[in-house]
């Protein structure tokens, strides 16, 4: 490929503490060759092709740590091609895919399959997570060593939580020896059994069985206790309540080393949005109170929460057109991750650099990837966006195969203009 010169952009790269008007050069191998204010029109040969970004913002491509793809088994909900199209239209260039497929990603041959499909059908970088336990049943741990050798960078049971404390302690012990990253969806199955939404006034009014905040807190407390004995790389996939955040705050104060994520849904919506049984807002973890939402926003602001994820969970319309109790859980969200995150900047909740870091560099660092920054020599995975452009979410225009957005008709500010992957324009 030819070298590309991106000029006249506002470049924000949290890792390198960069926020300046400048340019970026992509070399012929699709790598970042130079970046910053020195890359300006005047310094460049006049003969080369330049892409004028007109002062729009250029950031590293987004790294989304929690994405569900329907392959294999649920191709009618999302396949690699549709996921890829959805991702690039939202500026996302790397994703960690969850292992809750059919069959489950719990062995090396499945990983091979995913890597091949991902490579052939999608433009984005797919980093499959393998399950912690065989068939995500919480009993027998998977072959961490062999899976790691196949390139697995993270282990999680995705929508499931390892319930058995003995199994979990052994997993953490074993993971500490192989330096594997464990990502836990924190939910006590018994406390949350048949639960549908946050336990509180709304669940009482709607007559829906509640999921107490304790279901999340108790697992986080348990795992953080294990972490005192077994020093593994531990990441809480996403938290939903203020009380859990308090546990995290205390553990950090005690010097424990772990990281935490939050779904953009829990930062942008609360239980009141469920209204008259809107099944598109049936999520796990559930949307909680406005107080919880505010606490989580503050958690990102203070750095207690490291990562914002889309928790992109495509569900076909049929599985949502049911009573609330029977409807499927989860929301599509990879395309709106960036604009919803920007909402927290526009409403002055969180500084822009911090937000961008939570969707680029922080996840990349936790995963141990050379992504999420504009380091020289990195793949030129980039996102260019207009931070002010207003638009309204219209589910019929979503690229994802499933249209279960929880924010239909929401007015957003900020839209992706261009996405580059390995130096090639993948969108815009």
């Amino acid at each position: 490929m030819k070298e590309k010169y991106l000029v006249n952009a506002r470049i924000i790269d949290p890792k390198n503490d960069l926020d300046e008007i400048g340019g970026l050069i992509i070399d012929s191998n699709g790598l970042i060759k130079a970046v910053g204010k020195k890359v300006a029109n005047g310094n460049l040969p006049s003969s080369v092709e330049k892409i004028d970004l007109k002062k729009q913002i250029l950031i590293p491509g987004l790294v989304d740590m929690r994405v569900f793809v329907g392959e294999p088994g649920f191709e009618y909900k999302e396949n690699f091609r549709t996921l890829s199209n959805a991702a690039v239209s939202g500026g996302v260039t790397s994703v960690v895919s969850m292992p809750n497929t059919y069959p489950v990603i719990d062995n090396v041959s499945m990983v091979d399959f995913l890597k091949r499909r991902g490579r052939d059908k999608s433009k984005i970088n797919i980093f499959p997570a393998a399950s912690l336990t065989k068939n995500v049943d919480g009993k027998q741990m998977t072959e961490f060593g062999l899976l790691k050798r196949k390139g697995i960078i993270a282990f999680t049971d995705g929508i499931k939580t390892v319930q058995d404390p003995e199994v979990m302690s052994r997993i953490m012990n074993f993971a500490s020896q192989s330096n594997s990253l464990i990502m836990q969806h924190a939910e006590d199955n018994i406390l949350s059994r048949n639960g549908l939404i946050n336990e509180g006034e709304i669940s009482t009014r709607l007559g829906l069985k509640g999921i107490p905040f304790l279901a999340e807190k108790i697992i986080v407390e348990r795992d953080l206790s294990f972490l005192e004995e077994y020093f593994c790389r531990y990441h809480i996939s996403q938290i939903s309540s203020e009380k859990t955040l308090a546990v995290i705050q205390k553990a950090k104060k005690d010097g424990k080393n772990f990281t935490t994520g939050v779904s953009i849904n829990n930062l942008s919506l609360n239980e009141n949005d469920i209204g008259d049984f809107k099944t598109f807002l049936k999520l796990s973890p559930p949307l909680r109170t406005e107080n919880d939402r505010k606490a989580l926003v503050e958690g990102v602001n203070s750095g207690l929460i490291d990562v914002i994820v889309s928790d992109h969970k495509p569900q076909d319309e049929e599985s949502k057109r049911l009573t609330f109790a029977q409807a499927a859980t989860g929301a599509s969200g990879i395309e709106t991750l960036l604009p919803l995150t920007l909402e927290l900047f526009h409403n002055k909740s969180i500084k822009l650099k911090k937000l961008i870091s939570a969707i680029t560099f922080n996840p990349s660092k936790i995963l141990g990837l050379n992504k999420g920054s504009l380091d020289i020599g990195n793949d030129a995975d980039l996102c260019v966006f207009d931070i002010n452009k207003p638009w309204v979410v219209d589910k019929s225009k979503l690229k994802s195969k499933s249209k279960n957005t929880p924010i239909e008709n929401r007015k957003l500010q900020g839209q992706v203009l261009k996405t580059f992957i390995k130096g090639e324009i993948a969108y815009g």
Partner: protein
Amino acid sequence: MAIIKKLKAVKIDQNHLLGIQELSFPQITEILKQAKTFITLNKSSSKKMDILRGKTQINLFFEPSTRTQSSFELAGKRLGADVMSMNIVNSAIKKGETLIDTAMTLNAMHPDIIVMRHQDSGAPNLLSQKVNCSVINAGDGRREHPTQALLDALTIINRKGKVEGLKVAICGDILHSRVARSNIYLMNMLGAEINVVAPKTLLPHSIEKLGVKSFTDMKKGLDNCDIVMMLRLQNERMQGSFLPSAREYYEFYGLTPDKLKLANKDALIMHPGPMNRGVEIDTNLADDINRSVIREQVELGVAIRMACLKIFCKKS
């Protein structure tokens, strides 16, 4: 007929009765007013009217029910509608059909009213978005059972003349009870003071925010009450351990003559049925014709349902 026309002061535009929460005060008084006229009719020798002649009413019951279903059936028939009752418990749903598909199938037969009971909260709301006819909620999950609350109010008015200013105690399994929720909304709107009495494990989260006082001590909860509304222990909805035993429950939360003494002398005993005698209520108290209005509740239930069918049946 003249009197009914005169009472048509409040126009109720909506076609669905999904819950008390969705009703306004004037709508409630209108339903109660119209129901009163049907009480006398139901006692007369000729009970048939032609208000709903030519209309089709489908009773769609996904949960077993005796009194509510027969009450709705009778109410529809007395108003002249063609009534069909369907028990879905062992029908299409078992074959994998969704609620919406079942609803669309029935909708194609052009019913005017669907009366639905469903084990999932919010099911009637979903149904009402998909069909052209009126939807009347005959109980959904733990959410609402509006006609039960309305007939309770009518029973109270019939005996006490009003609801306003009365003190109502709702006792028992509040957590799983749609009757409790509908009654809390309705009695609040009608100006009663409400106590809920239950062990903590059977009280829903934040119940006080619905405008009630909650008590775990039944003696305190019954103090000075005019109405004692007992609820059934819903064993079929209980997963796990909510209570040590039925024996302990009866000891502390069963309505006995001793506990009833703490309520007002002329306090009425109510129960939506079916009763578990000796579990939540002393069997003699349940049958005490001076105190118990349980039979009357059933009787007035038909009148309330006639009023609701008449008012909410879609006007075309």
